[in-house]
């Protein structure tokens, strides 16, 4: 019985300190130092409408946009997840065959594997620079832009996420598409 009372007392104090106090401090630090990312790295357009988050992939199907990696949850930002299929599963083969058709990939111009493999959370906001360049011709054609211009845009947006610790560069698909829209309008 006495242990029960001691336990309740310690429980209440740890809740006060570790839940209310700690959360409060970190919340304050975050909203003060990094209000933009603390609220979800949201991007708003000129009219003040939220068009997405820099960190959350969205669905692109139109040929004039770069396409994100496939998502097992159809880019559901409120219910993320992966395919959880074994890499030996024929379900993955079937999905890849569809994507090959969508991209019009051929053995001469094979599709980078990350564009047929779903990410862990289904919301991966990036593709590799290589996978973006792969799509450059389609995007340039659909927009009537010179391919070199689209490729230059990709290179401007590419970065190495971990410096020397990561082998290649990646691009943020949503930011690239926004830049693409901006450069097409300003033409």
């Amino acid at each position, binding site marked *: 019985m006495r242990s029960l009372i*001691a336990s309740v007392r310690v*429980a209440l104090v740890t809740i006060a300190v*570790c*839940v209310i106090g700690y959360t409060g401090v970190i919340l304050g*630090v*975050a909203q003060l130092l990094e209000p933009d990312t603390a609220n979800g790295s949201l991007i708003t357009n000129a009219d003040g409408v939220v*068009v997405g988050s820099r960190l959350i992939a969205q669905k692109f199907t139109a040929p004039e946009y770069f396409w994100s990696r496939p998502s097992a949850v159809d880019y559901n930002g409120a219910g993320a997840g992966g395919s959880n299929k074994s890499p030996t599963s024929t379900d993955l083969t079937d999905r890849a065959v569809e994507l090959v058709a969508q991209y019009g990939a051929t053995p001469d111009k*094979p599709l980078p594997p990350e564009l047929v493999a779903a990410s862990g959370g289904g919301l*991966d906001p990036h593709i590799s620079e290589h996978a973006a360049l792969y799509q450059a011709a389609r995007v340039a054609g659909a927009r009537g832009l010179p391919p070199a211009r689209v490729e230059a845009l990709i290179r401007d947006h590419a970065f190495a*996420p971990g410096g020397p610790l990561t082998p290649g560069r990646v691009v943020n698909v949503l930011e690239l598409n926004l830049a693409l829209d901006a450069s097409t309008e300003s033409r």
Partner: protein
Amino acid sequence: MSAILLVTLIVGGTALLSWPLGRYMKWAMDPDDAGPRRQRLERILQRIAGPLGRPQQDWKLYLIAMLVFNAIMFVVSFGFMALQQHLPLNPDAKEAVEGSLIFNTVASFTSNTNLQHYSGEVAMSYLSQLFSLMWLQFVSAATGIAALTALARGLAGRKEMGNFFIDLQRATFLVLLPAALIVATLMVLGSMPMTLAGSVTASTLEGAQQVIARGPVAAFLTIKQLGTNGGGFFGPNSTHPFENPTFWTNALSMICIILISMGSVWMFGRIVGRRRHAAVVFGVMLVLLLAKITGSVWFERAPTQAFANLPAVEQVAGNFEGKETRFGSPYGSGPLWAVLTTSTSNGSVDSMHDSLNPLTGMMPMIGMWLNATFGGVGVGMINMFVYIIIAVFVAGMMVGRTPEYLNRRVEAREMKLAVLTVLSHALFILVGAAIFAVTPWGRDTLNNWGPHGFSEILYEFSSASANNGSGFEGLGDNTVPWNVATGLVMLLNRYIPIILPLAIAGSLAVKRPTAQSAGTLSVQDATFAAMLLATILIIGALTFFPAAVLGPIAEHLLFM
């Protein structure tokens, strides 16, 4: 190449960092001669606990206090979660959680497991996330650190093992909280969300509506990693871009996953007064860790088998399914994290373990089967202590001398308790997996067929029993049989491997110390390290090899 560099930096860097941390943890948990400021602090901790905060406890009283406090943890967090639909901090109007799921979830977080049969952003209000789950992430981790402190005191020959209520507060306020404040601030600077605002609806460039869930992620994620908890704020855990926005938050997370578990070994060595012994144990753990990392990184180099016969897909090294682009090479941080998170009992993921190559997926299972490669905060070293007792006993028998550990005789009683601890872990995994593999309870919940389906069941029970919490998440495990069975396994195999080892320590502590002689088996040289390594590997292989053959090995041989 970048993968090797990453492994070296993360594992090596954290190992170096763990040395001063162990020294600090000794100061925090078991102060020798406290200065006036520390004494003031201790008086505050005693006042918080009330009259029971003062007396020293023997191993039995210590355990009772621990179990009562853990029961309160269970009840309080159950209450918050069961009432979430009526309580504040629910901007997205989450509804009531189903009963067996509450039981499973609260059992999971109380036992430091963090197995999740729900998806955070779908099912839980911010109140449940913070007041139930994040609170348990602090105090369940602190329970583990307190238990190791008590064990070490017993092995140092003290009959009194300290005071649980004080130890728990020391672990919470002096070890976990300061670390969490530092790391959470870094996570915030690394673009992680931290807000109490509800989800936001975006109008996408192609004109669709996308609902984006947010929340107080940085605070939650940090203690999830530091306390070897592993339960994610979002369903897909640290693969979710909000829970792991950049390569650098990913690297920092990996450091946090192993840091306090590594420090616990040094703290143990300092409390028992045998730093060299701790170094030998640390070395054995490190060898096992590196072996598993080498295996998993190597096996993950194989390209996704499902795309092998598609000429229109580029064939390059690495399996991309379930991996995130921003973490770099598909055979870098994914398989590295998979090993770190299952060597410690963390269980968070930055790639989908269900989609790892078959033999890569076996490495996390081995981690959970052995469960002593640094292990959970505090409890990992306790698990290793059990292996040490067995190794010492076997070695003693081999040379025909009475086995001793730290100047105390290890006799039949201690050996029985040690073997019982090891056997209960094996029993829960193998019997549980066997039952669910032959009944609709398991068979109807699979996401993959054949050997991989068996792996999903085997992994789930391994994770529950090892208090890990990761999963082959394709398994449709939010059913009443899964919730009840894994809930019970998590609770039983949380407390059995604390109670029995503390009983061993209590029994050793009251024995008369033996004099050190030339015939005494040294526990701080390479011979002992080899003996300990062999003991762990032989016990592990004898117990789990047949199950591994039916799951990941069969899948590899059939399909790869």
